[in-house]
């Protein structure tokens, strides 16, 4: 079949409108989910359950990858810096890299893969099996009952995970640099303490991870809520969550870095 020129232009316009429409839908979705107080007595219980699913269950992957990233940073940094005879700066390098960039970014990417995809699939399946419509039928707002606790759980747990990631990474770096490669532990820590500023580096990293938490959780939950209620639709939505969230985190990271440092 041969589409005429005007048909193609119309198609282009329609997909553009679709993108803008989705964006608007996701904004309204976020506002409706977060605005106002929850009308459930057990709102705290719902939040705790989600914090467990989203935060606690992500601990293992965060700790293990933080440890290895810190170790590999120390190893690479040592190899490069020892060429200049300044291997005592390896602590400073590991700490600044983790706090400013790798901590928030890698945590957000892992979070999108580990927790974000699970959120999308769970909510998508709820939609496909019409649990969301049944909730509405019995007069419970699914945005408040299902979506809001998941959003808050994501917002709360990712900054905490990022901080844990940084600490484990710095500790892993110390293990490699000090215990295995023989950098003097006093200069590892003092170089780090002299160069890391709490307000500049730690807080900016924290702000970054809060922004990433917002974006990743929003994308994940919205993709689940907005997916086609078929098995194919759920699989596509899950893929989209990971892809969109990763792209959003990486591009947002550049913008935030340009603003902060």
């Amino acid at each position, binding site marked *: 079949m041969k589409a005429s020129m005007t048909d193609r232009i119309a198609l282009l316009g329609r997909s553009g409108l679709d993108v803008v429409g989705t964006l608007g839908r996701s904004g309204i979705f976020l506002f409706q989910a977060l605005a106002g107080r929850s009308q459930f007595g057990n709102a705290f219980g719902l939040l705790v359950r989600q914090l*467990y699913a989203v935060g606690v269950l992500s601990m293992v992957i965060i700790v293990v990858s933080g440890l290895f990233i810190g170790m590999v940073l120390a190893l690479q940094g040592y190899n490069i810096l020892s060429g200049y005879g300044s291997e005592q700066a390896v602590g400073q390098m590991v700490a600044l890299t983790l706090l400013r960039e790798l901590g928030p970014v890698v945590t957000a990417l892992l979070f999108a893969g580990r927790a974000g995809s699970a959120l999308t699939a769970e909510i998508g399946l709820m939609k496909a099996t019409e649990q969301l419509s049944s909730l509405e039928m019995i007069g419970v707002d699914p945005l408040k009952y299902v979506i809001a606790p998941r959003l808050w759980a994501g917002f709360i747990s990712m900054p905490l995970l990022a*901080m844990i990631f940084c600490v484990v990474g710095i500790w892993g770096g110390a293990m490699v640099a000090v215990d295995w490669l023989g950098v003097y532990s006093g200069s590892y820590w003092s170089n780090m303490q002299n160069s890391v500023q709490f307000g500049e580096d730690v807080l900016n990293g924290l702000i970054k991870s809060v922004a990433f938490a917002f974006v990743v959780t929003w994308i994940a939950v919205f993709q689940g809520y907005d997916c086609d209620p078929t098995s194919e639709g759920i699989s596509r939505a899950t893929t989209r969550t990971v892809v969109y969230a990763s792209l959003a985190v990486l591009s947002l990271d550049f913008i935030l870095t340009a603003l902060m440092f």
Partner: protein
Amino acid sequence: MRMRTLELTVGVFILAGLLALAVLAVRVSGLSTNTTGDVYKVYAHFDNVSGLTTRARVTMAGVTIGQVTDIQFDKNRYTGRVEMAIFSDVDTLPADSAASIVTAGLLGEKYIGISVGGDDMMLAEGDEIYDTQSALVLEELIGRFLLNTVSSDD
């Protein structure tokens, strides 16, 4: 999983995150070293403090005994006035000790090295170190070297 266990696990998780933030504040960014009260202030005037920054180490025999807390220009003496906070358990620095600005490695950071004097009087809060040696400025050194080469050619 029972609700009680769930709450406890989540509580442990949140505590771990907050603890991590505290560790980052105290251990990594060294906020605590800024606020410890048990130090005493000593001053020194340098002709040239180039490259020295606040929070730089003050060392004796290679061991950190304090840090630089302030650097200002003394408009009466045309020198850099450096304020150092020395740990108060190091209270046996003779009054005629010498302070010099030295570099860690070729490209490393600048810090203050104090070499011990022979006076019976000890440095105390507010005292000044008179014997100082300025930072090594590489350009000056190269300039002097070139000058020597030229004059030895004559």
